[in-house]
Each structure stands twice: as structure tokens, then as C-alpha cells.
């Protein structure tokens, strides 16, 4: 422990030394300069936060010397008056107008989205653009497909009973076996093989999308599972899997449960059960969305500390930067755990709901 303590003190000193020396020497000058210059703008927290976790028509990567490095994605719109338009988002990125379309500015009703000015006013055309979230979804789905198919390639050439896979196929088998044996077999019941494809797909989709959201380099870093439309679709899939294949016993338990008549006649229990049919997928949707979004926003807030303290003096800025970086690393590791856990919990709850909808009635 003595050696560890010494290494820790040395690293901390290394991190803090530039800030302390800069603070001791030039703090007065920097403050005066900052007060005088007009370009030292305040950090707009709303735009910073929602700009990073929201959707956009182009994928903004960074800004070098005032020059925006952006991947311009195609905008595909259909206007009622002029038909289909396909153009790069480069033309509308600074709020300019192109072919009658522009992005609605702050304060307007359709803020941030593409609107069209026609004779009757400002209207929103049919918009199927490839936005940042759509492009990220495509890239992540490709990653999932590659991961699973490359992992499955091993099984074509080797006999799975005779030898165990190692390397990449081993990781994929480990994950698949863990989900299948610990969750799907246990929770769905005897006919689990019908639902394994959907549940395993859901797990890998959510897991890979969560992980790609943590990676800050392009093409990772799009906030996909923190987008409520995506989690809504996942919840709809579970809703359909549960209710389309439900037992007769399952529906009997909803509409005419085995309770005293006075609870069924005023339809109290059936009403509660019907609400329950909808709240279960709803909670799945909100849980995944809120966990991932909250993680991203916390990480963004920790990094924003560096920029917020930039005007308050060099000493404070460098000290808070060190704290912010260390805390940010810790938050990133926590995000890894949350990424896996949310996928695990979603799959587990979906398999429990499917299993509950296919239970055999208890023998009297």
C-alpha cells in the first residue's frame, strides 16, 4: 500500500502542477482579458445538453478553429406542392433556406425540425430524412448483425458438442448461453424456443446500442436508446409478443378473473387488469429511456464543468478539470454497467411477461 500511495500522490501532483503554476503566474492577466473580450461567450447549457442527446439533420463531430467538422446526412422530404426533394443537410445547416425548406428557429412551433413556407403559412412536410439517430441506428444494427453472424460462423465448421469455441465466438456463445439459460429458459417456460430469437435480438440490440452511445467517437455517440421513439418501438414489440400469443387462460384472467363477483360486476378488476396490460410495456419503455438518457446527461454535465469554470480563473478551472475528468472516467465505467444491466433487465422482464401470458391454468 505504501507504493500505491506514493504512485497516487505522484500522479495527482502531475495532474495539478500545470494548473497551480499557471494560476500563480498569470491569473490577473487572464481575468482582465476575459472581461475585455467579446468572444468569451457563456456556455448555453440547454443548447449544449439537448444538442448532444437530441436528433439533428447533420452529424456534428467537432469544431476546429471555428470550422465545423460535420458529416452531412441526406434530407429526404416530400412537399404537398412540389413533390420529393433530396438534398444534403449542408444547405440548411446554418438556418438558411433551400428549395423552400429551412430548419425552424428557436421559439417557433416546430423548433429544430424542417419546415416549409407555403402560401398558407409554415407547414411541416412529410419528412423521412436520414437524421443522426437514423444513421446511428443503421450503423449500430450493422454492428449487431456482424457481431452475431461472425460469431455464428464458427459453428458451421466445428462440432459444438465436441469442442468449445474460444476467441470471438467464445464471447458470443458466453453471452447467448447466459441469456438463454438464466433468463429465457427459466422465465418463459416450456415453449421458450419460439421466443428465443426475439428476446436474444432485443438483448443484443439494446446492449450494442447502449455501448455505442457511450463511445464518443464517430460513428458511436448517437443517443439512440435514450430516444423515446426507439424504446417505444421496443416496448411495442414486447407488447405484441405478449398479447398476440396469449393463452385463453391469460385473457380469461384479464376479463373474468377468479375473484369474488362484486369485484367483477362493477368492472373493477378487469379494468385494473386492462390498465396493467398497457402499463407493463410502458414501464419497460420509460425504464430504458430514462436510465440511458440520465447517464448521458450526467456525463455531459460533468464535462460541462470544465467549460463553465473556464471564466472563473485558471486555478479553479484546472482544479475542477482534474476533478471533472476523474469523475467522468468513473461515470463512464458506471455507464458500462448500466448498459449491460438495462439490456439484461429488459430481456428478463419481456421473457417474464411472455411466460406469464402462456401459463397453464392451475389444477384445482
Amino acid at each position, binding site marked *: 500500500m505504501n507504493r500505491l500511495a506514493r504512485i497516487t500522490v505522484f500522479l495527482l501532483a502531475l495532474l495539478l502542477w500545470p494548473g497551480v503554476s499557471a494560476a500563480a503566474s498569470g491569473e490577473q492577466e487572464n481575468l482582465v482579458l476575459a472581461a475585455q473580450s467579446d468572444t468569451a461567450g457563456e456556455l448555453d447549457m440547454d443548447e449544449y445538453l439537448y444538442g448532444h442527446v437530441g436528433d439533428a439533420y447533420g452529424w456534428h463531430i467537432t469544431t476546429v478553429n471555428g470550422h465545423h467538422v460535420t458529416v452531412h446526412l441526406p434530407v429526404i422530404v416530400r412537399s404537398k406542392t412540389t413533390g420529393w426533394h433530396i438534398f444534403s443537410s449542408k444547405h440548411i445547416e446554418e438556418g438558411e433556406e433551400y428549395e423552400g425548406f429551412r430548419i425552424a428557429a428557436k421559439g417557433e412551433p416546430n423548433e429544430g425540425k424542417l419546415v416549409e413556407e407555403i402560401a398558407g403559412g409554415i407547414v411541416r412536410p412529410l419528412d423521412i430524412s436520414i437524421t443522426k439517430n437514423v444513421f446511428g441506428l443503421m450503423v449500430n444494427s450493422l454492428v449487431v448483425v456482424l457481431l452475431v453472424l461472425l460469431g455464428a460462423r464458427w459453428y458451421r465448421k466445428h462440432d459444438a458438442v465436441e469442442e468449445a469455441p474460444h476467441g470471438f465466438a467464445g464471447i458470443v456463445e458466453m453471452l447467448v448461453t447466459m441469456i438463454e439459460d438464466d433468463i429465457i429458459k427459466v422465465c418463459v417456460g416450456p415453449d421458450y424456443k419460439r421466443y428465443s430469437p426475439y428476446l436474444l435480438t432485443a438483448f443484443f440490440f439494446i446492449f450494442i446500442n447502449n455501448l455505442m452511445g457511450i463511445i464518443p467517437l464517430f460513428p458511436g455517440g448517437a443517443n439512440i436508446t435514450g430516444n423515446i421513439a426507439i424504446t417505444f418501438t421496443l416496448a411495442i414489440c414486447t407488447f405484441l409478443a405478449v398479447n398476440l400469443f396469449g393463452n385463453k387462460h391469460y385473457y380469461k384472467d384479464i376479463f373474468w378473473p377468479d375473484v369474488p363477483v362484486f369485484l367483477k360486476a362493477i368492472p373493477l378488476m378487469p379494468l385494473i387488469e386492462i390498465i396493467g396490460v398497457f402499463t407493463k410495456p410502458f414501464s419497460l419503455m420509460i*425504464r430504458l429511456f430514462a*436510465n440511458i438518457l*440520465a447517464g448521458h446527461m450526467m456525463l455531459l454535465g460533468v464535462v460541462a464543468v470544465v467549460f463553465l469554470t473556464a471564466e472563473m480563473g485558471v486555478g479553479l478551472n484546472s482544479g475542477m478539470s482534474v476533478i471533472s475528468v476523474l469523475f467522468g472516467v468513473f461515470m463512464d465505467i458506471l455507464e458500462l454497467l448500466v448498459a449491460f444491466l*438495462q439490456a439484461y*433487465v429488459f430481456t428478463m422482464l419481456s421473457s417474464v411477461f411472455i411466460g406469464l401470458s402462456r401459463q397453464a391454468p392451475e389444477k384445482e
Partner: protein
Amino acid sequence: MILQAVAGAALGKAGAALGAGIAAVAAAIGIGKIGQAALEAGARQPEKADHYRLTAIIVGALVEGACLFAILVCLIGK
């Protein structure tokens, strides 16, 4: 009247901050109780300690879901 409008906006922000604080306290209490139960059960029966740890993590995620729902409402009401 302007004062009332300003007061209304400030009340929204104050309510949102208060709600977020209460949600954090609720999450801390809930997950603390789960941790306590898992550790006590593991102390009574060390062979199944791994099972208790896994169950604790899963139930922690479920409780966190409820608290994050409150956080969402606060973010929207800000």
C-alpha cells in the same frame, strides 16, 4: 402581472429541483434497503451469495426505473 409570470416560471424551476431531490432520496433509500437485504441474506447463507448479489442488482435496476421516471417529469416541467 409580469411579476406573476416571472414567479410562475420560478415556481416551475423550484418545483422541478425539489422533485429531483426527492427522487434522489427515494432512490438512495430504496437501493440501500436492497443492498442491506442482499448482504444479510448472503451472510446467513454464504453458498447462495452469488445468487443474492445478482438478484440485488436486478431489483436495483427496477427501483431505479421508478425514480428516473420522477426525474423525467422534473426535466419536462423545468
